[in-house]
Every structure is written in structure tokens, then in C-alpha cells.
């Protein structure tokens, strides 16, 4: 009926894992999009029949960039089945370890994955292009190099307290395996001080507290300092605030559970805050190469459709909350936690998602510094627990990219079922039985496509603004 051109965009790089985006173009704009996660490994199936403790070794290896998030979710799920929680100091140390990973991921995203697109020749002639080339050319850019160095140094905290990164076994249902001594506390504080120095010199160009005090998009775009200043200048010139707008529906499982509440709150946001209710979570399989019915993850299954039926187009299931898609990530977390700048980006596109992440880097640095100050080198960092013969547990955490849940059922002392919904499973979900597209699929509609573009730059910006982790998505 139409001569709508179709484009297949892939390999889609500078995202974690494999991604292929199919778009239909009409009148120079994306008319519809389908997102394909083209890798299936079957982690949930691997875990069936195993000793439940083995989930602590295997699930981190779902993902080399969100490894600790997977550790923490598994530890929480097993802890729930055992009926134990980490000791207060053990839980705080796990939160610190987790926060280091999340901040590192945000930093990697901004410098290595997202910003290099602005150094592309397509933007030659823009007033900022020369600076973007100098700072953010992939691999070579000076900002790229500085961020990799700062990240590696920050991760000394992980060497010290988690043995290594990625893939640690340090995080356990009852706390962490290594108790810090007085010199460890000093070392952690030293690493954090050095990281703050980098952030304030390079990324923010000013004290973090000044950035955290911003409340409006107008104040934000006047920032003008550090690499963030360059990004904001680019964002204004390219109108990134309106590109790839979201639905305004957000969810957070709550980040960093501590003795007296979360570091960043849990909840649902749709024009206002509501408490998180996970009973309304289902996974729809209508457009996934998966067999079975729509189900809550505690009863859901993962059975791949080996014939890869034509009606489906991704290995990714379509998670829904109360039957509807929902966006997760740093912006969602900061909106739900009530930060005024984040809330001013309710429903935002590329600029808002990136701003949410930058705001979270600053706020998480303060959070980590507080935990480090509160380390008690005489405290107990782990308790022991016993797994039940029969039971179940849920582990809900916030990975860098958003809400991550593990649902485990134990029968006869073995894993009977293990279901995982990762952040990008939410954000990059395919259509559901009603034909409702996932958050990225919806956000891509209306993106401009220039004459002759085969991998449209607007699609690149929108996709990367979500910071997808595709290896987590299907697992």
C-alpha cells in the first residue's frame, strides 16, 4: 500500500550485548519500530535442578557490566527464601559495592557509549563539533581516556571488598564475605575522594552539591561547566529534550536497601507517586520466541521456541505492570525518589534520560561517601542462614539500567524455577498481545530519518539514551 522503506539497524554497537532494530520510515520519520534481542543463552533453564546457592555463582555471569546487580538480586532472593537479611553493616557494604558498579556503568555509558556519536562527521560544522571530537572520539578521545582511568581507580574498592570485578561471590544472603578493617575503611575513603576529584574536575567541572541543587531544565542548560556543559550545549543545539520522549510511566524497585530504608526510594510514577506492587507484573510471550502463557514470574517459565515462529521477533519477553509497559532506569529512579530536577523531566526523551544518569552519579557519590564514613571495623558483616527444602524468594534491586528482579522457587532443596526480569527486558520489550509496543519501540516513533541514512543518527541517540544491556535482557 505504501512504499515505506524498512531499515534494519545492526550490529548496534556501543550497547552491552546484541541488538537489532527494525524501523519503518514514513515522511522522513520513524513510523514504527521493532526491537530484536538476537541472543538466547537460557540462564533460567541452566539453574533448574541446581543447589540454590549456585545462583550466586551463575547469575552474575549473565552480565559482565551489571554483574553485581545480579549478585545482589540473587542474594536477596535466596535470603528471602532462607528468612534472613544481611547484618546492617553487611547490607551497607553490599550497597557500597553495588553503588560502585552502578556509578561505573553510568560513567562508561556517558563517555564510551553515548557521547562518541557526537564526534561523528555528520555533525561537522556544528559549533561544538571540534570539542566533541577532541573529548569523545571513540577510544581516542581525551574524556574517554580520563573516564576509563577514573573508573579503574574507583574499582579498587571492588578489588578490596569484592575480590574482583566483574563476577564476585562476595555478596551473600547474610551480608558480605570480607569484613573491612580500619585500613580498608581509609582506603575506601581515599578511592572515593579521588573519584570525587575526577568528577568535579572533569565531568561536572564544579562541586557535586551545586549540580544536585539544580531544580529546573532551564537551570540545567545554563550549567556550562565540565564535559556535562559540552553535552548540554549539544543537547540544546540538537533539541535532544524532545527526541525519543518517554511515556511518563516509571518504576523503581528501590536502590540500596539499608537498615532504615532505601538509598533511592521504590515506587511507581505516573503523574504522581504510588507504592510499588509487584503482584501486577506479568511477562507476555506473544511476540517473543518463547512458548507458554502470560504469567507472573513466580509461576512463569522459559521455553524457547526453536522454530522461531514468524509472529514473534525477539528472544525478549514482554514484561508488563498491570498490563502496561513501563520505563525503568536512572531517570525513573530519580523521579520516584523525588528529586526536583528529575521530576521536571517527567516524560522526557534523550536529554532527560542522560540528565537523570548524571544527577544520579553525583547523588550516588554522596551516598557512597556516607556509607564509607559509617563503616564500623568492629561490626559483624555476615550472618549464616539455612536454605529450606521447599520455599520461594524474591530479590528486587536497582541495577544501573533500572529495576531487576529474581524470582526463585525451591523444591526438595533444589531450584525448581528461576525467573529473571532485567531492566532492559522492560525498556526494550517487544509488543504484547494487544500490540502495545515496548518503551523503546514507542520512543522511536517520530524520530527523524535523513535522506539516505541507513543507521539513522537519531535512532542511535534514542537507543543509547536508555543505556541498554542486551545480555541481561534475555539472559
Amino acid at each position, binding site marked *: 500500500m505504501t512504499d515505506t522503506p524498512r531499515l534494519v539497524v545492526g550490529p548496534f554497537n556501543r550497547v552491552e550485548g546484541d541488538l537489532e532494530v527494525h524501523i519503518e520510515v514514513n515522511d522522513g520519520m520513524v513510523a514504527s519500530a521493532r526491537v530484536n534481542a538476537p541472543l538466547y543463552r*537460557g540462564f533460567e533453564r541452566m539453574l533448574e535442578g541446581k543447589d540454590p546457592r549456585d545462583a550466586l555463582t551463575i547469575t552474575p555471569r549473565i552480565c559482565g*557490566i551489571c554483574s553485581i546487580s545480579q549478585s545482589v538480586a540473587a542474594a536477596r532472593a535466596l535470603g528471602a527464601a532462607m528468612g534472613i537479611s544481611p547484618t546492617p553493616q553487611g547490607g551497607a557494604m553490599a550497597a557500597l559495592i553495588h553503588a560502585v558498579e552502578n556509578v561505573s556503568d553510568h560513567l562508561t555509558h556517558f563517555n564510551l557509549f553515548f557521547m562518541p556519536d557526537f564526534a561523528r562527521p555528520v555533525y561537522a560544522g556544528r559549533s561544538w563539533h571540534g570539542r566533541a571530537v577532541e573529548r569523545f572520539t571513540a577510544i581516542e578521545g581525551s574524556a574517554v581516556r580520563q573516564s576509563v582511568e577514573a573508573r579503574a581507580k574507583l574499582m579498587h574498592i571492588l*578489588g578490596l571488598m569484592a575480590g574482583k*570485578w566483574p563476577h564476585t561471590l562476595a555478596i551473600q544472603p547474610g551480608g558480605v564475605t570480607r569484613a573491612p578493617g580500619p585500613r580498608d575503611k581509609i582506603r575506601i575513603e581515599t578511592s572515593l575522594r579521588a573519584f570525587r576529584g575526577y568528577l568535579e574536575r572533569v565531568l561536572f567541572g564544579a562541586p557535586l552539591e551545586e549540580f544536585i541543587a539544580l531544580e529546573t531544565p532551564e537551570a540545567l542548560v545554563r550549567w556550562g561547566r565540565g564535559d556535562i556543559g559540552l553535552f548540554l550545549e549539544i543537547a540544546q543545539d540538537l533539541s535532544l529534550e524532545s527526541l525519543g520522549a518517554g511515556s511518563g510511566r516509571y518504576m523503581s524497585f528501590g536502590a540500596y536497601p539499608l537498615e532504615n530504608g532505601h538509598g533511592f526510594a521504590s515506587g511507581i510514577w505516573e503523574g504522581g507517586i504510588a507504592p510499588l506492587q509487584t503482584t501486577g507484573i506479568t511477562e507476555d510471550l506473544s511476540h517473543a520466541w518463547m512458548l507458554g502463557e502470560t504469567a507472573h514470574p513466580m509461576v512463569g517459565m522459559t521455553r524457547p521456541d526453536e522454530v522461531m515462529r514468524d509472529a514473534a521477533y525477539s528472544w525478549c519477553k514482554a514484561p508488563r505492570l498491570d498490563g502496561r509497559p513501563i520505563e525503568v532506569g536512572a531517570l525513573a529512579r530519580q523521579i520516584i525518589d523525588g528529586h526536583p530536577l528529575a521530576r521536571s523531566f517527567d516524560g522526557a526523551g534523550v536529554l532527560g534520560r542522560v540528565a537523570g544518569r548524571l544527577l544520579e552519579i553525583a547523588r550516588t557519590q554522596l551516598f557512597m561517601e556516607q556509607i564509607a564514613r559509617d563503616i564500623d571495623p568492629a561490626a559483624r558483616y555476615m550472618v549464616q542462614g539455612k536454605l529450606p527444602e521447599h520455599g520461594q524468594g524474591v530479590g528486587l534491586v536497582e541495577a544501573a539500567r533500572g529495576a531487576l528482579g529474581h524470582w526463585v522457587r525451591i523444591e526438595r532443596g533444589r531450584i525448581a524455577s528461576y525467573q529473571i526480569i532485567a531492566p532492559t527486558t522492560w525498556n526494550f520489550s517487544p509488543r504484547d498481545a494487544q500490540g502495545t509496543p515496548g518503551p523503546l519501540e514507542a520512543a522511536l516513533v517520530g524520530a527523524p530519518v535523513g535522506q539516505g541514512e541507513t543507521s539513522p543518527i537519531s535512532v542511535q541517540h534514542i537507543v543509547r539514551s536508555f543505556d541498554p544491556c542486551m545480555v541481561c535482557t534475555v539472559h
Partner: protein
Amino acid sequence: MNVLWLQAAGCGGCTMSLLCAEDPDAFETLGGAGVKFLWHPSLSVETGTEVLAILDAVARGEIALDVLAVEGSVARGPRGTGRFQMLAGTGRSMLDWVRTLAPLAQNVIAVGTCAAYGGVTSAGGNPSDAVGVQYEGAHSGGALPADFRARSGLPVINVAGCPTHPGWVIETLLLLKSGAFETSDLDVLGRPLFYAQHLVHHGCPKNEFYEYKASAVELSEIGCMMEHLGCVGTQAVGDCNIRPWNGEGSCTRGGYPCINCTGPEFEEPRHPFTETPKIAGIPVGLPTDMPKAWFMALASLSKAATPPRIARNAVASRVEVPPTIRKPRGGA
């Protein structure tokens, strides 16, 4: 020397680990030595059709490929089609791409245990029918046949580890660049000897506990983890405790056992990872090259000789009894 890096069915963690290289960083070290990424999925600017052009040019022989680095295992499923992992935008499976590109490369590196032997991606019932590039577990012959040789004459170099230490990958690349790398530099499982000639046990801070078989009973206790907690550092290859991770870390320094992540089939130890299998109360599995009778004799002797300081610290979460200090004789 150019490097084409493909991420097959893995977690991407070996790339993330590579970025933890320090003094200088990975980009500085590799770039400074003349090692350039022809394309790397996480790091390069090229995307979509730009990548297809690079792959086509290599496949047609217009770009001479020095190193093909494969991270992640190769999915052969479902039903031998490889369609559990299609390389996005190409309509072809990763299995197909690896088989196409490997014979064109001067050298092929399997980065990480998934790429080397199948690794965690092949755990459980191996849902995606994953294999290593040239091994299936400990058996030679994976996505590529056992007799595959790269143009240099070397088999696939297995830089195994889950993840790999950034130094292992970098030094392998730089040794290849220098031309000083031969088959004799690999162990019997294709791993570079410069790290595979060490055991994780070497330099482990729990060595004194090991000497007396003063064992931690539960995770979070600082004693040796061999007897009860599944640690196989005396059998696993790796210089993890000689050159630490992320500053000053290692698995055993972090208080959890070595699970032999550099070895084939580590993902299926046939017992819980953090529990030592025993027969009649005696741990199964001996330190490498140790005769069983001698080990049993020495273990029972040393256990009986354990000083109280070591016995007590072994089951504590931090040092409770410091070493006795004997002041030098003489003086005031």
C-alpha cells in the same frame, strides 16, 4: 596489528575487565604498542552498515586480519542452526561468522572461558548448545575443528578466565605483536603459560592456614577454604594472587573460594560451588602434583600441629590473635 573483536554468546565481562587495566590504561597500552581495534562492539564508533562494510572487506580479503578475538561461547542451537545468536544486521549466525573469519586471521584468540571452552554459557543442560571456539569443555574441537590452525600456525589461543584478567589479554596481544609467541608458549589446554604456569594458590594470603589445614567452616571466616568451602586454588591455574585484580583483590582475598574459572567445565563442578565434596569426611580433590598418601599424612600431621593462634583466626571474620612477637635479644 589489527584486532577484530566479536562478542559471541557471553556476558561481555571480559571487555569490561579489560577496561580495568591500569598504569597505563588498556587504550594507552594497546595503542602505544601499535595494536588497533579494527572493530570492537563496545568501544568502536562504527555501527550498523559501517560494521557490515568492515566485515565484508575482511571476508573478501581486502583487509588482512591480524587477530580475530572472540569473547563468549559460540551457540550452535537451536538444532545446529546457530540461530540462538544472529549477528545483528547480517542475517547470519555468529557460528557462521566465526567459521568464516577464523581461517582468514593470522591468529585467533578466545577471550575468556566461554570462548575457550564453553564456560558458564554451557552450564546446566547447555540450553543454547554452546561451545568454545576450538574446545567443547576439555575436549578439543568446538566451533572450529580440533585440527584448526590460524594462518600463523598456532591453534586458538585460550585466554581463559571468568572474567579474564586484563593483563592476560593485553600481554597475549602484545606478545603476538612482538612475534614472540609459539605453540610451546601454551599449556595443554591452549592457555598462555605466562599465567597458566602458576596456581591460584601461589601468593594466596591464606597460605599459613593452608599449611596447617586450619579451615574456615563458613563463608566470612578467614581460614583456608579448601576443606569445606569448595576452594580449588591449589589446582586451578592463574596468577591471580601474584598480580592482583582491581588494585589489590583476588577471589580468595575477597573471602570466597577459587572455583577454577580458568579451567574447562568449571561451570559444572558436580557439587555446589561453595561446598567441598567429601568421601567419609575427607575432601575429594588433591593439590596439583601432590601424591595422595603424602597429602593425607602431611595434612593430619599439620592439623595436629596447628598453633592456637591459627586455629582461632581460621574461624573468625578478622584476625583475632596476632602473631607472637619475640623481641630481639640483647639491648636494653
